[in-house]
């Protein structure tokens, strides 16, 4: 099953001009737990999708909102010459097709 068919929210945004943060939220505990225990979404898959070393990625599970958060450094500081997404609001799209077993 694809992550986009399980999650309720998949979004990205800057957390300051040097950091992109990805939030994936679920409608119920079963879906949240299923993705938490799956290898489909992990620091490793995020590292591959975003070309960022695993040790620079922060992962936080936030059960109170049934959410998983990843924070990663931006390759280009927000608004620097050559940036493509100043707010970082469109960097989530490549998460949609992640396969969750």
């Amino acid at each position: 099953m694809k992550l986009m068919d399980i999650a309720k929210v998949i979004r990205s945004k800057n957390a300051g001009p040097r950091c992109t943060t990805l939030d994936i939220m679920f409608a119920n505990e079963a879906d949240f737990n299923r993705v938490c225990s799956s290898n489909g979404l992990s620091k490793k898959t995020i590292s591959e999708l975003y070309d960022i070393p695993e040790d620079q990625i922060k992962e936080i599970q936030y059960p109170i909102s049934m959410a998983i958060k990843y924070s990663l450094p931006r390759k280009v500081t927000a608004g620097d010459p050559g940036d493509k997404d100043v707010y970082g609001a469109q960097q989530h799209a490549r998460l949609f097709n992640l396969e969750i077993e």
Partner: protein
Amino acid sequence: MSATGKLIKEFAGRPAYRPLKIIGASGQLGYGIPTPAFQRGLEQSPDLIGCDMGSIDIGPYYLGSGQMATARASTKRDLRKVILGARKLDIPLIIGSAGSAGAAPHLEQTIDIIREIAKEDKLSFRMAVIPGDVPKSIVERSILRQEIIGVDGMPDLSMEELANTTNLVGQMGLTDFQKAIELDIDILIAGRACDTAIFSALPVLLGFDIGLSIHMAKIIECASLCCTPGGRDSILATLDKEYFELESMAPQRKALPMSIAAHSLYEQNDPFLIIEPEGYVDLHEAKYEQISDRSSRISGAKWIESNKKTIKLEGSTKVGERAVLLCGAADPKFIANHEIILREVEKIVEELVCEDIPKDYQLFPRIYGINGVTDRPIQPSVPDEVFLMIECIAPTLERASEVVRTTKQYLLHYGYPNRLSTGGNIAFPFTPPEVSIGTAYKFSVYHIIDIHGDENLFEPSVIEL
């Protein structure tokens, strides 16, 4: 007696003796405040109206240039609405990060609008103003003492970059706001500030728990964004000794535990932490309980005071002048070969425009449909159409315009191998397809400094209107 004076007197010797009602009127003042929810908020007899007016998320341009991100007319409409509301009830109005980026020119434009409103509506009040600008000499000293740290891996700040920074601000905190609130005022307008200070400074001064006050502030600074469904409407927070309660002033928006807790994720890299100049709030023990079908009660935030005060600095510097070429393409051969074509055209243009001067510009092609938004396509394919935005940053606008105009001509007619279409490679939605945008900026400063004895960094002054 002024609006803050009355509250301070009422709570003197009776810390947090009754609940305090606070309206979060807007998370981005200047983009419109929905009137029905704001009016409903005023009907609840609030003690304070707060609005956030700025952010670093909008990028380096506004800070660097001194321009506001919001239109003057809509900013004035919003300011008038909250000023009239607060003056009618004779309660304090607190606004932070004035004019989008909170530097001197932003504060000046905001005060200018407020003066106009006071005159037009025949209002008189005492207004405190706190500039958010930080003298470069203080940062120079921090660099020399090596007491400055780049946030999230921001490169070290050099003296040269500091000198080139056009506007330099610091995020002031709740103690800076409190000094202004104690000046017996009706309205407080702050330059760049922690959004939490807007809503927490007064309650903490009146004896409310600092952790709870900051947690509440962090949520209501975005108005009803924490609700299901989230939105821009005003929100009411009722702050008590052990907890605070939230209710949106728009009937269709419900402040539910799940969405309120989820708000801690928004634009934050750690949902359990709120870092302030004076310490941090730990949210690991925070509790969210639903108390009606559309309101919740929140408790459990813990304040951990730091033994030194730190300030987060933000600064922007000019990088050049920006011009862009806007065009599209539908020829599959052109689209499939666009990388080679662009590389070749870039070379030809460079040979021409740099015949008599060295290369002094940067070119950034973005091919929408392929890699305009993200680094690389998720699934590489040849789309039916692409949009090309070719950006040039050069020392002058004339130079940037020269480069994109020349690029347009050679991109239009470049004869790539196996080309079938010899009429032109790109489509212009209109002419001229080149747009001169103006000065481009980048963040030069996003650092944290210790402030030692500079407790008077953000000094309030009072204007009588």
